[in-house]
């Protein structure tokens, strides 16, 4: 057996190519497929997935990236659902992974299928938020990350007060509510990199 082959049939089935025992397009150094969910490499290239990223991971990143448009997020959610539903085996595998982090209900409605689960916190944190916080920890240290948690907590409280005021004045508060969700996600990412539950 070659180490570039799977020891059992690829759970993605024929969608991964005619060779059911092929792994990561026979290029495990530059390409990986930890969940057995990635279609052929040419298809991952087509959807924009990078080396070392399965199609599901790619869709999760697009769906949770604040810079993604609504169309991109919707497309990534649909794509993530398809990636999770390639076969009954992979669907169960994906559902088990996501359920541990987000709860079965969110998996069932398909939102969590496009979200990165972060172990140890129980919260959903995008790769972008987590990566930013990891860079902050490396550059500025633990105290800086702790200060971010305090600052954003104050900012959320301020924004909640502003939302109440603006709503009373007849303003549309949806963007302000979105901002609060973003800060909460950043706080979750900060807690994650600090190892705080």
């Amino acid at each position, binding site marked *: 057996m070659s180490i570039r082959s799977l020891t059992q049939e690829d759970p993605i089935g024929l969608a991964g190519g005619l060779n059911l025992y092929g792994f990561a397009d026979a290029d495990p150094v530059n390409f990986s497929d930890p969940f057995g969910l990635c279609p052929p490499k040419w298809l991952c290239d087509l959807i*924009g997935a990078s080396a070392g990223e399965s199609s599901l991971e790619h869709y999760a990143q697009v769906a949770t990236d*604040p*810079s993604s*448009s*609504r*169309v991109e997020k*919707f497309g990534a959610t649909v794509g993530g659902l398809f990636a999770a539903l390639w076969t009954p085996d992979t669907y169960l595998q994906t559902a088990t992974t996501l359920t541990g982090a987000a709860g079965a209900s969110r998996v069932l409605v398909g939102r969590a299928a496009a979200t990165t689960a972060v172990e140890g916190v129980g919260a959903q944190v995008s790769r972008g938020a987590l990566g930013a916080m990891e860079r*902050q920890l490396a550059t*500025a240290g633990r*105290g*800086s990350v702790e*200060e*971010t948690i305090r*600052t*954003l907590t*104050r*900012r959320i409280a*301020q924004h909640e*007060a*502003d939302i109440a*005021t*603006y709503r*009373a*004045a*007849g*303003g*549309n*508060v*949806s*963007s*302000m509510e*979105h*901002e609060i969700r*973003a800060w909460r996600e*950043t706080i979750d990412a900060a807690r994650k990199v600090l190892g705080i539950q």
Partner: protein
Amino acid sequence: MTDQTSLDPGELKSLADLLSRAPRVIKLGQSTDAGSSEEVASEAAAGLFDIRKSAEVLFTELLPRLMSLRPEGAEFEDVLDDIAEEYRHINYHITNTRLFNYVVPRE
């Protein structure tokens, strides 16, 4: 971060109403993925006000404090952290304001 002044809801609402009548805002609001023109306008208005608040904190408070401190001290580090938080806040609004999100490069 210094506690910032609460927004003036009347001023913000006026700006949002003004923006919501702009042709490009109406056009964006009619596209399927952008939400209503009121949403687009409120988002842009709130973003502008928040950026203004952060800029005021940066230039009237944090920068003068930074210039008065020795770089080896803990307080200097604290001011750098405060500056980073204002940058984070400004960056959020630049990245998440649909009316202007074409300024953000994407792959």
